[in-house]
């Protein structure tokens, strides 16, 4: 039997250097993504900010991207992990196209693939630090789902990530209905994004709205929302709230 200590290779997962291999904290992050189903497909909104901790460092980050012919992916959380996910999906769509048969991966398939990826990474204690929103239309069927960094996934008529869950979803629960027109859908999303702009410190006033229908994906040019800061509650925030500052 050999009692001499064996030297581990540098990239091994045992020993003190192993933690540098795993994601422990996010560094450059995006904030909420909000999305809803409307008459012709899905509408999704996200701002263009990339925060570095509490600094709003990057202001031109596209957090929504088209995937294949039928899907649109929006992400919050670590931007580099989002870019990694886009690479995985790029390969996936490439191989799907290479079959060159009449079949193609729809939004449901992409959503489930992402769920598997996120969950498997979570099980290895090396998560992709993102909350994803996947929307699309295929053969007239609208699909909207979300996956979190621990692999929790579900579908719904409207979804949001991060702060959007707390600030936007209640608005959507009240105001969303089946067969919204495009204009009404955009107005509803802007209402949500405005609230997020007022109340989420990582939000910036530069957003994009993306639309996906049977015809394809359109992502708007970046624009800003009109804000009003003269509300009396903003001018005098401590009034009526004992103990606040």
């Amino acid at each position, binding site marked *: 039997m050999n009692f001499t200590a064996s030297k581990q290779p540098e990239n091994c997962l045992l020993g003190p250097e192993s933690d540098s291999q795993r994601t422990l904290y996010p560094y450059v992050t995006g904030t909420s993504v909000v999305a809803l189903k409307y008459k012709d497909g899905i509408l999704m909104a996200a701002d263009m900010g990339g925060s570095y901790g509490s600094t709003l460092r990057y202001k031109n980050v596209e957090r929504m991207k088209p995937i294949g012919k039928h899907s649109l992916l929006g992400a919050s959380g670590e931007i580099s992990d989002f870019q990694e996910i886009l690479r995985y999906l790029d390969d996936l769509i490439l191989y799907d196209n290479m079959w060159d048969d*009449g079949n193609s991966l729809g939004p449901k*398939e992409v959503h489930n693939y992402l769920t598997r990826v996120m969950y498997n990474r979570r099980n290895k204690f090396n998560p992709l630090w993102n909350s994803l929103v996947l929307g699309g239309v295929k053969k007239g069927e609208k699909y909207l789902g979300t996956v979190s960094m621990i692999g929790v996934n579900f579908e719904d008529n409207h979804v949001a990530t991060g702060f959007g869950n707390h600030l936007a979803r209640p608005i959507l629960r009240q105001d969303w209905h089946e067969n919204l027109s495009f204009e009404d859908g955009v107005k509803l999303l802007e209402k949500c994004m405005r609230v997020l702009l007022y109340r989420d410190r990582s939000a910036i006033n530069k957003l994009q709205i993306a639309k996906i229908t049977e015809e394809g994906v359109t992502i708007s040019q970046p624009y800003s929302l009109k804000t009003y800061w003269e509300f009396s509650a903003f001018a005098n925030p401590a009034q009526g709230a004992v103990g606040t500052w």
Partner: protein
Amino acid sequence: MFRNQYDTDVTTWSPAGRLFQVEYAMEAVKQGSAAIGLRSKTHIVLGCVNKANSELSSHQKKIFKVDDHIGVAIAGLTADGRVLSRYMRNECINYSFTYESPLPVGRLVVQLADKAQVCTQRSWKRPYGVGLLVAGLDESGAHLYYNCPSGNYFEYQAFAIGSRSQAAKTYLERRFESFTDASRDDLVKDALMAIRETLQGETLKSSVCTIAVVGVGEPFHILDQATVQQMIDAFEIVGEQEGPAAAGQEASAEPEPEQGGAAAGEGVAPMDI
């Protein structure tokens, strides 16, 4: 085919550019008992002849469900067929798990063909000795494919493989133009007729054949003996097709009316000997 000095290894070419081992593997398919398949726009029917070794034994299973939307009928070395069915089931279930969606049959067939091709290019392997009729659905509708030991695959409207399959093929060639728009029940009847052709005079009974159906809205399943016997009785008595067979769409027993309808009519192919 006679033995020659180029037929020992699958990795040896003959001077005429043939791989004899692969061709011998295709012979094995021809020796197996017959299997047939035919399809319409929305349904595919698979059928096979069951040969039991003796009165005492049961017959070999030659039709396998691969997934709700895919099934396969085999001819040749049934052991090889069983192993390939297990591979197909595995591929389907893995795809379903990852994508929550059924694996398109066209892709499964290519994977199967690539697997067969590997065995024609390794000196330590031998080709699979089984032909597979793969019936399945994908985005573009109903499909029927034939996978050979050579690693080739073809799509068919209708096909037959195994011993005495030529008789069935002749019948199918005569009738195939009507298959695309045929009803599900007509398709099953045509399958039974085709099987009857391969029996060469033997009586067609549900104990000598197996029928399976898959279609849009109908998961792959093997029809039970009673249903098959009813369908045989229905067309054998009359010799022709009858209208109201449109009863059960499911495998559940159709209350087959003994409407001895002297419904003449519908060109039944004269039996080939």
